């Protein structure tokens, strides 16, 4: 009986400890060492002022001082009808050439 009570007390204590640890904060990042950044860009005031026009970065919490949250995609990453068509065309050309190559091997 006494052992049972002791176990119950221990279990209850464990629950309290577990719940209080959870309620405070999770333990994160344990064992992860800092890795030096290979490339670092300093965010200048000029960059912040022009954040609205920046197609590569999201520099302020709401995108820019205007807070429109409107991101102007950089041309190289913007997927347009034209770029889609170009990629599809390239894929078709490549597929066609590969099929020609394959048929030449089997011939």
């Amino acid at each position, binding site marked *: 009986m006494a052992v049972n009570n002791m176990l119950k007390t221990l279990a209850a204590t464990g629950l309290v400890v577990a719940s209080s640890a959870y309620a405070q904060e*999770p333990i*994160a*990042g344990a064992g992860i060492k800092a890795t030096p*950044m290979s490339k*670092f860009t300093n965010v*200048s005031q000029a960059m912040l002022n022009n954040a609205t026009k920046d197609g590569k970065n999201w520099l302020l*919490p709401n995108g820019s*001082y205007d*807070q429109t*949250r409107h991101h102007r995609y950089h041309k190289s990453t913007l997927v347009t009808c034209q770029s889609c068509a170009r990629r599809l065309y390239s894929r078709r050309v490549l597929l066609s050439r590969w099929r020609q190559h394959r048929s030449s091997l089997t011939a």
Partner: protein
Amino acid sequence: MFVTTSYNHVYAINAVTGEQYWHYKHKIGPVSTYCCGPNNKGVAVSEGKLFMGTLDAKLVSLDAKTGKLLWETEIADPELGYSETMAPSVANGKVLIGTNGGEYGVRGFVKAYDANSGKLAWTFHTIPEKGHEGVWAENDATGRNMKRDIAAEKAALAKGGGDFYKTLGGGVWMTPAVDVKTNTVFFVVGNLSPDLYGAERPGDNLYTDSIVAVDLNTGNYKWHYQYVAHDVWDLDAVSPPILVDVKDKNGKMIPGVIHGGKTGHIYVHDRSNGNLIRFSEPMVSQEGLWTLPTKQGARMSLGANGGVEWSPMAVNPGLRLAYAVNLEQPMT
């Protein structure tokens, strides 16, 4: 890319590969009262530094490259109900941050700190010591009568005085917008304390439920516009303001500032003086406005969670369209 998580962790990760560079964990003080949950809305970044507000009402500056703590300062006393979950902003060497705690009897503010030293540059209190009773507005921003008993309010103010400004609330939850051309900071002010019981706080309760403009260099007041005076419904202003060119009443394009309210309207202001140019049709049901709280309970739609709540609006300047997420939720 810099990411914050609950309980004030900051992670620096490679945005292409997901590789983690460093991780900073803020040591939160023993006493911390906060609403609503231990969330954090992000960091500000400038000139090799990061800035984060913490649950225990501190502002920390980190080396953006290494995550090393550069400086830390207490914004306000967390034991008095102050806490931070908003993302600060940084402009022209000043870090701008408001405060949570409107539910816990704080006196709200926006503060500016020197980005290099952490030294306080200025404080703008969202509850003025004098004049918080305002103009005894009878109508809301859309012109509808709010059924206030203004005679009783005036009598209560005359009898009890206006000392309640010290605990009237007026938190600033969201990142301010900044017009760097005119050195102006725009922010919205949240709910009152107590938020649903108005007898202890007669008057308009300025600048709660308002959009406010102050000077970036000094924090001096420029203008304000209040949407709901003497709010007893928790229909405060909490969605980040947006700077965008708008048409004035004569159809001329001018610099404007817009805000999506818990009331379900988008309000369009002249950025230079705060004048309300127009407001949108309601985006959610509006039934029984303005029903006053009763002991038995009375149903009203709008609800305290919005309309437009914390979810930021967005604007596509090319299409000239504003987008707002709303919540349809009556309250009793």
